């Protein structure tokens, strides 16, 4: 039990260097069955977010596109898992290659070298690898919201494969691998506890670029398009909230104090974001919508993602609230500007992620700042802010340019935008030969 205590303390320290040194163990490490249990659970919870996202997005599109949109989430489970096992894990968590553009370790090819590895946190490396795999699934699935209802199925499949390889894996390496350059920025690195930069900002920005590149849906915005199933969207949001506990609290790679702190921050920020959204809508429109409430949940969850390890409940309350304000405004602005970011991948994930990464600076636990000051003397909020802004800008720039390049190439080859006929008939019948709700037509 002493060991447990020590490892808890250790983990507290490691908390903000997520995944750092986890690989450094030389001596054989004992498995911590408790930490392993929670990481297994977290892996399951993050996987639950994928059907959750499928429901969230699927409910918001028009009836004729419901299956196609859900398939965007589901196919990400298939494609990204296989890629991750083959080479993604290696690119993300291997040793720096090509000047640190990404990583590589032959050992990690098909995960064959980690069959019996136990990480220094006491969990089998397989679990860590599978937990991380889920992040690589979620990120491209989030993008799909930006160009929903008008993307060809084949084009989408190629897009997420390339995006995962060229955008996600490098970014993940920079931010989370122990030799990643963002991981080593400033005193204690750029803070991205559970993927604000890696997952949400990159997905949000890529989504915006893709939405602009593909162009708006036919007859957007003059023809309003009604969600086919808000009920399902609500349930999906509920599952996302539940799954996010795995996403954030699991990112502590432990089962102890830091896990608890992350879980608490997550719960509080989600609630604060949701309440703020209905308050804003109440003031602005006179009605508090269900979609608004769940959008607020997401805004809060996204914003707390980078911050969950460093802020206390009061900070989480503030971050959730602020994120919602910015997301709300961003979506109003988008509507003014007329971009067709269909399901607001940028408005929620991009803006929420940016807001979280920046604002967290002002709510960092004192103990963390003290430690940072121990590492780099005179380290203060403003310096950390600089690091955060830098990391955000790099993530934005890299994903924007990279996504644009991928789309450009795909557009010239397999094609990415759905044919006009496909868009009109609906993705479901055109690409999948099916319809979502047989029950609404006699048959």
């Amino acid at each position: 039990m002493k060991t447990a205590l020590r490892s808890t303390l250790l983990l507290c320290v490691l908390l903000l260097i997520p995944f750092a040194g986890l690989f450094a163990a030389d001596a054989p490490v004992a498995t911590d069955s408790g930490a392993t249990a929670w990481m297994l659970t977290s892996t399951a919870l993050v996987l639950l977010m994928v059907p959750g996202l499928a429901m969230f997005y699927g409910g918001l599109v028009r009836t004729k596109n419901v299956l196609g949109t859900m398939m965007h989430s589901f196919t990400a489970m298939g494609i990204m898992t296989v890629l991750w096992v083959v080479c993604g894990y290696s690119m993300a968590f291997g040793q720096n290659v090509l000047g640190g553009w990404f990583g590589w370790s032959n050992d990690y090819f098909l995960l064959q070298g980690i069959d019996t590895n136990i990480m220094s946190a006491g969990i089998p490396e397989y679990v860590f690898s599978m937990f991380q795999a889920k992040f690589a699934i979620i990120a491209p699935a989030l993008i799909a919201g930006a160009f929903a209802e008008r993307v060809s199925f084949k084009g989408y499949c190629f897009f997420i494969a390339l995006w995962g390889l060229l955008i996600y894996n490098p970014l993940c390496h920079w931010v989370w691998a122990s030799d990643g350059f963002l991981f080593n920025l400033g005193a204690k690195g750029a803070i991205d506890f559970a993927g604000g930069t890696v997952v949400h900002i990159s997905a949000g920005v890529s989504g915006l670029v893709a939405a602009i590149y593909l162009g708006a849906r036919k007859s957007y915005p003059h023809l309003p398009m009604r969600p086919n199933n808000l009920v399902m969207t609500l349930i999906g949001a509920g599952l996302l909230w539940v799954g996010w506990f795995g996403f954030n609290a699991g990112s502590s790679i432990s089962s102890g104090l830091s896990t608890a702190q992350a879980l608490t921050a997550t719960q509080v920020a989600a609630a604060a974001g949701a309440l703020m959204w209905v308050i804003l809508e109440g003031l602005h429109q006179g009605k508090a919508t269900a979609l608004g409430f769940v959008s607020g949940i997401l805004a809060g969850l996204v914003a707390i993602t980078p911050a969950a390890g460093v802020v206390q409940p009061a900070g989480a309350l503030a971050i959730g609230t602020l994120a919602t304000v910015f997301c709300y405004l961003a979506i109003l602005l988008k509507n003014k500007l007329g971009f067709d970011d269909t399901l607001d991948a940028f408005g929620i994930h991009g803006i929420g992620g940016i807001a979280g990464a920046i604002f967290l600076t002002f709510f960092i636990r004192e103990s963390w700042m003290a430690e940072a000051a121990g590492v780099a003397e005179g380290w203060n909020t403003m310096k950390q802010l600089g690091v955060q802004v830098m990391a955000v800008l790099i993530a934005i720039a890299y994903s924007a340019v990279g996504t644009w390049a991928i789309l450009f190439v795909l557009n010239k080859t397999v094609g990415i935008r759905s044919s006009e006929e496909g868009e009109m008939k609906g993705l479901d019948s055109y690409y999948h030969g099916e319809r979502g709700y047989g029950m609404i037509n006699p048959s």
Partner: protein
Amino acid sequence: MKLVVAIIRENQLDQVREALIQAGIERITVSYGSGHGRSKSEEIYRGQKVVPNLIPNARLEIAVNDAFVDITCDAIINATQANDGGLIGSGKIFVMPLEECIRLRTGERGSEAI
């Protein structure tokens, strides 16, 4: 015999039905439709007011003997106006000739079968 088709606001279905029953018209068939007329209804989508271009309506079909056409129409008109005060989008009534009506159960035909 006539077939009266009334397109009404979805949310006035209950009161129209009650009015019809009070007027002695008990047999109706209702289905859902969506309409495009002069009316506007507003929904909100992420902080934006949205005017759906097809508004959900209920569609009533009532087969009646000639003598009941006016009773039926009046019942519908009163029920909808009473709750509406001239708001746009109350709906329409269409009256069509009905040549034959058959009760499946008994095979009765004509006005008996209505």
